[in-house]
């Protein structure tokens, strides 16, 4: 179902705020994986503010949907959402990366309420998610597992091991979204280690592929609702995104995979974000 104008407006405002919170968090943290945190903002916003069945007051609620952010380095993009949802006080973002803080570069499932798996070692999220989804099915539980992956991590063999297993076991209570921002640490994905034909690879492994503009809430909503209903094969949503989205000097630049921001750059980045949303 298409989003109402009211919903769309709400999500855009939320995405604007989360992006600015991400910029602040990078500043407080003394650096962070900002590029990939800005590319998956719409994906995370629509999941957390529309689809996930969660209760931030009860993070261990047994019937909650599970969320495995396999691109665990995107902590500075993920933590502001968890704080905004009320999993922990927003003030904690100011202690990001500080000694003794619960918030480190990669969000830690043992320490951070709302985080279902300690990720960051790439290629681990999809196998864990397949196990979670199989566990739910075996126990007749209706909760869903959402796995949010980076594209670069699809170089890992374990991703394709899990892709094979998900298709083999017809794991359809799992929704996988790949943030296809086409950039990794050392350069563009197609230069470092070619992923294309990316969709064909997933298809060949027995998955149904939905390719969408990962910054378009309506397109994401359609694809997620399709994946929720599909029961013949696992669905992967390849969300085409721009690394560093909304910040002009970061957009599409692999150099901004990880970076630090001084107060001047923080203001500049926030101005870019505001301008972007005003234009919209």
């Amino acid at each position, binding site marked *: 179902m298409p989003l109402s104008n009211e919903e769309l407006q709400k999500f855009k405002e939320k995405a604007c705020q989360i992006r600015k919170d991400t910029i602040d968090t990078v500043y407080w943290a003394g650096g962070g994986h900002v590029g990939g945190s800005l590319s998956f903002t719409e994906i995370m916003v629509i999941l957390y503010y529309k689809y996930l069945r969660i209760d931030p007051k009860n993070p261990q609620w047994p019937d909650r949907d599970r969320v495995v952010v396999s691109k665990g380095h995107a902590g500075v993009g993920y933590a502001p959402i968890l704080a905004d949802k009320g999993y922990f006080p927003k003030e904690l973002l100011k202690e990001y990366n500080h000694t003794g803080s619960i918030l480190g570069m990669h969000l830690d499932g043992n320490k951070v309420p709302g985080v279902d798996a300690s990720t960051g070692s790439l290629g*681990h999220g999809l196998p864990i998610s397949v196990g979670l989804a199989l566990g739910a099915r075996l126990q007749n539980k209706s909760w869903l597992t959402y796995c949010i992956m980076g594209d670069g991590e699809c170089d890992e063999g374990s991703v394709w091991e899990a892709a094979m297993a998900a298709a083999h076991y017809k794991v359809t209570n799992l929704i996988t979204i790949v943030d296809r921002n086409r950039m990794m640490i050392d350069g563009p994905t197609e230069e470092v280690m070619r992923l294309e034909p990316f969709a064909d690879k997933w298809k060949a492994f027995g998955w149904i592929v939905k390719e969408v503009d990962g910054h378009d809430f309506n397109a994401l909503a359609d694809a997620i609702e399709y994946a929720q209903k599909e029961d013949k094969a696992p669905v992967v949503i390849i969300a085409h995104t721009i690394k560093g989205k909304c910040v002009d000097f970061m957009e599409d630049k692999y150099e901004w995979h990880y970076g630090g921001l001084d107060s001047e750059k923080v203001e500049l980045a926030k101005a870019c974000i505001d301008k972007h949303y005003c234009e919209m």
Partner: protein
Amino acid sequence: MAADGLTYTIVDTANMSTAEIYGKVLCDLAEKHNDIVGLSADLAKSTKIGQFAAKFPNRFFNAGIAEQNMFGMAAGLAKSGLTPFVSTFAVFASLRAAEQVRTDICYPNLNVKIIATHAGTSFGQAGTTHHCTEDLAVMRSFANMVVIAPADGIETANAVIAAYEHKGPVYIRINRGFDPFLYEKTDYGFQIGKAVQLRDGTDITIIACGAAAYNAYHAAGILEKEDGLSVRVLNMHTIKPIDEEAIMKAVMETRRIVTFEDHNIYGGLGSAVAEVIVKSGKACAFESVGIPDEFAIIGLPEDLQNYYGFDQNKIIEKVRQIMGKDFEQTEDWEDEV
């Protein structure tokens, strides 16, 4: 008796390989506990978790030859509230998928039980690619992990039941094929982290695990009969947490300790025992026997036990050699006590 109520005797398990006993015990446990699920990576037949798969096909997942995904899936299944038993060869469990075991299972302290077969040099003829003389060292270094090397099939039954009852990850390494029976029944008081004293003695203590425990027990009998030696034998089935109390008792009461294991001498049982002795500051003659720092040769497991010094004859030789040394004559021996 095991708290779970399952007990076994040599009569129940006669003519069964150690892995077959594991398969049987897992099936019996799974009858009583719906939360048990099984995983293997195309080694269901060899590891005998296939017995569970045949009996509970809906609760078994073959991951294909893909160990990293298998251990990730096990983590996910455990997170969903189930208790996965995962079986593959020790070399793949501890090395191929080591990071998944560490990060996805041990760090969140998940209830995953790894029953790794073909450990040590028990798959001797398969060669170095299939030997595993490093797993105790690797697994021992993962926080939260319990590491067990049972002496025989009966002890494997106890270890598997105890692993189920323990909350958190457990690694059990068992041998390929048949192990001679050290025990006749399971009711000898097996407890994770508690060594079993097979014989008491005052001259020297042998600490052994896995296949070496049986050999040590029988070697001690011969040493007593032929040499008049009083040899204490500890079956140190749990490498982690190690039984510090039993080790220190041996230090104080026998002053000589020698360890035997089917593992590289670095990082396994010998190292674990040495760590306890050294930090105590108490003097003790100590030697550790296992695979020296090399990749093991190809051969029959019995032959390799001899070659690497932990069959009955080599254990006897080693004890005689240690007893022939004059530790007590060194000048400051008394001062150390």
